[in-house]
């Protein structure tokens, strides 16, 4: 798992108040002082959120944008050391008297180790998507590339709106609720098509070899028609449960509710149950 910045923050914000809190309370139980370990936990969380920004910045210097295990360990040591130094020198608010070093070491070490081990494996067993999302539980997903339905490549653009009585642009069959109409065989793949000519550069666009300022060559002329390719209806247009049913001669209603032709196949096309 290669973390993203939001992934790093979410890991901290979810794991420190859960796993971290349990370990902190256990440490507090042993030393009969809950407040100091709780403050230390808070500092680990708050400082960590800032550290994460630095870590993520460091990955931009790495070609693979990754965060090796060895870096994870080194970061854990540096973070812990900084907090300890601040506790004993600056006297961080909330921690009036520094706890004994072994107490801090055990608390911090246990928290770090348990989170490290959770990240290495067990978390994925519960959250299948988590590792693909750079450690994020919450992520905004776009199902489609927004501009995908319109392929706006210049070669194609030129053909939009060009009246061609012989071959109007074909649009893929739409399913707006009605059974699909068979539009006849599609001539496009079988008709003899003229090869599209690449017209190459136009020397007239250049006033001379040394012309530094270019005149935009404009659209490249095409001799042959370019077929327009349009996508099918978007998922939003089609209700999930909508089924286009063929006319059936002898209806067979399956236990799942799907009606199909009794003589057509031995299995329900919807759920796969055998026809009885």
């Amino acid at each position: 798992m290669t973390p993203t910045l939001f992934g790093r923050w979410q890991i901290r914000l979810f794991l420190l108040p859960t796993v971290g809190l349990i370990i902190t309370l256990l440490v507090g139980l042993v030393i009969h002082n809950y407040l100091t370990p709780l403050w230390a936990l808070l500092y680990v969380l708050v400082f960590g959120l800032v550290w994460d920004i630095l870590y993520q910045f460091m990955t931009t210097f790495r070609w693979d944008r990754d965060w090796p295990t060895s870096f994870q360990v080194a970061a854990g040591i540096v973070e812990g050391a900084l907090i300890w130094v601040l506790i004993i020198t600056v006297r961080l608010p909330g921690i009036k008297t520094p706890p004994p070093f072994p107490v801090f070491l055990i608390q911090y070490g246990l928290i770090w180790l348990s989170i490290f081990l959770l990240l290495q494996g067990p978390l994925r067993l519960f959250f299948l998507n988590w590792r693909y999302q750079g450690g994020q539980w919450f992520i905004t997903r776009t199902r489609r590339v927004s501009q995908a339905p319109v392929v706006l490549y210049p070669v194609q653009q030129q053909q939009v709106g060009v009246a061609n009585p012989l071959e109007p642009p074909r649009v893929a069959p739409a399913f707006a609720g009605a059974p699909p109409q068979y539009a006849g065989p599609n001539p496009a793949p079988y008709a003899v098509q003229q090869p599209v000519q690449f017209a190459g550069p136009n020397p007239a666009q250049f006033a001379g070899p040394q012309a530094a300022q270019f005149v935009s060559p404009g659209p490249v002329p095409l001799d042959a028609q370019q077929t327009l390719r349009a996508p099918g209806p978007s998922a939003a247009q089609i209700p999930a449960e909508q089924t286009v049913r063929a006319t059936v001669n002898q209806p067979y209603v399956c236990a799942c509710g799907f009606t199909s032709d009794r003589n057509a196949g031995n299995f329900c096309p919807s759920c796969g149950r055998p026809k009885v």
Partner: protein
Amino acid sequence: MPADSQTLNVQLTWSDVATGEGREFVGPLPITLGRTAENTIILSSSRVSRRHAMLRADGGRIILQDLQSTNGTFANDARITEVQLTAGSSFQIGPFHFTVREVPAAAVQAAQLPATRRGFEKSALFSQSFLSRFAGLPVGESALVFSHDDKLLPEAAKEPVEESLPLGGMRQPIIPINDIYHSGLPVIETTYLAVGGGIGSFAWVDHLRIFGVPADQIVAIGLEPRPMGRYSRLCGNSQIPLHERLRSNSDSCPDNIWGWPSYGLREIFRSLGKGEMGNAWWVARHVFGEPSLTYTYTPRSGDVFRAVDKEAQRIGWGRIWRYGRVQAIRKTDDGRYVVVYMAPDQRGQMVHHLALGRYVQLAMGYPGIKILDDINEYRERTRDYTHTVNAYEEHNHVYEHLKKNGGVVMIRGRGIVASRVIQRLYEVRQQNKNIVIIHVHRNPVPKGHRDGRAVRRVINHVELQPFNWPKGCWTGSMRIRLERADDEERDRLLNDWGGTTTADRTDWQRIAKQGLREGWYQIYFGEVKRLERSGKGQVVTQLSTGKPNQPELALITDYIIDCTGLTAAIDKNPVLNDMVNTYQLGLNPKGRLRVTNDFEVEGMSNGPGRVYGCGAMTLGGPHAVVDSFLGLQYAGLRAVEDLVRLRAPGLRKLTPLRSFSQWTRWVRGAEPNSRSSTPAGTAYAGGFQAQGQGVRA
């Protein structure tokens, strides 16, 4: 405007950075190169300026001029402002390496009319015109295409697909369901239909099973009974025996959708169990230290194959898979899809079969092996298939002969396969010292790709990277960035991140260093003009180096091993080509199938029916690492999650607790539990058998 007599025509050749497919431009000077649409050649990369460079004629000479670009134009490893180019010389702009050559005017005419070469390459028209706006015309690339019995066929031997289809050639885009039932052909009906039967199909089916679909609702059609059948054979041919390591991450486990325990962890435990402390320590050190303290751990191929076979057993792959060579896919008029495939009937004759499914996943992988044009031409001319081989072909005779007699081997291509072959040659060389390796590159790579602040490392003119894409493309920020990008940005990012690389393995670097020092490993740069056969049966390579002091070289070698890789161009796959033509599907900037972020093939939805894609056919879409183990699993996961959203039968959301309980079943080797549609005890309990008899004659 220059007069016609002064017009110089040139041919520029380069390759697409992400796909490795050749590109060519032939035309008169002047030619401008840059990122924006006003240029003659549009180069999509953040390292290319809007107006980057210009090629112009000056009294019969070709002048390359940098137009004050930010990142510079390079020729002969030096940044230039203006330089005269000789024929065959190369220059570099961003990640693109160009070779320039002067051509007579007649050749320009020919090149501007790309003739349809063979029967079903008509669709190339679309991608050619489409791609030409971005990066020149694709070169009519040579390829060896896998045939139905999975031997390699020269391209000319392919048969056009539409001539042999049933149902009147299936010329309609939508097949009436009654025609299918009354066709007299065997029909199988299923809900989930996986086309391909390889690792991509397996990843999707594995997710379907774990998300709750019973095995008797899934059919996978392919040529190999084992999901990794073809992959393991290609590994063997390209010199990855079972004990060698793949180029794959420790937690990319095609046998385990959770990726834990990872292969590294499993190998440590296995080694400890066998008492092999040394290996356990080696693995632990590499898993922990990768990639900064030591090179990256990768699993042994044999371990992966065994693990996948075990998982295939667990999910009932034997009941799901059936033999078939897929020919075509069509929508039906009841919101499903029909897949036509060839399979033997009771008498063992190959006949058409039909499979009906509501949700189809296409995972057809690489349709063939890429082969360099000059080698292909030589092979067709001389019928010499022993001295020029492709690394993915069976070519053990090369090593056997070298072991006995020694000789000179030329290696073409600079990827991971080339590294493997050199390693194998090094091993053979331990037994016979009379082996010389000549490595020919088209162009030097003095500096690695750059992306923002990061630079890719280069050793011996080969770029280094643990995997075939930067690691952040799998699960990190790069994956998310690519998914959210629009088409043009995806094209640019793929060019910036792509390119041929090899793994940063110290043993390989030691071999190269030792070979260079001792002289038995040599590197040459240049464009191969032609291969000839010498009297002694050796192959003579005529190399034009573009260097003024030594423009031509003739290299005499016993063998040439082409390590340029596999091809996944849509027009090389008859099934996809036919589908794209029939449904007028859009292609992405890399000329591959256009898929949504859920890997649904755009334009193929049919009422409730959906078609999903995965693998190399979707490169240029939302995911860069489509042909990796983890990339295939990701495509499978996204497709299955989309199906959950569509409330497809048998599927349920994989809640954290269900996910964990399914993982415990994986640990125990128990079949994924599902709400079976055929309750045990009915006459149809053996779903596989029953469906087999359900064939309609």
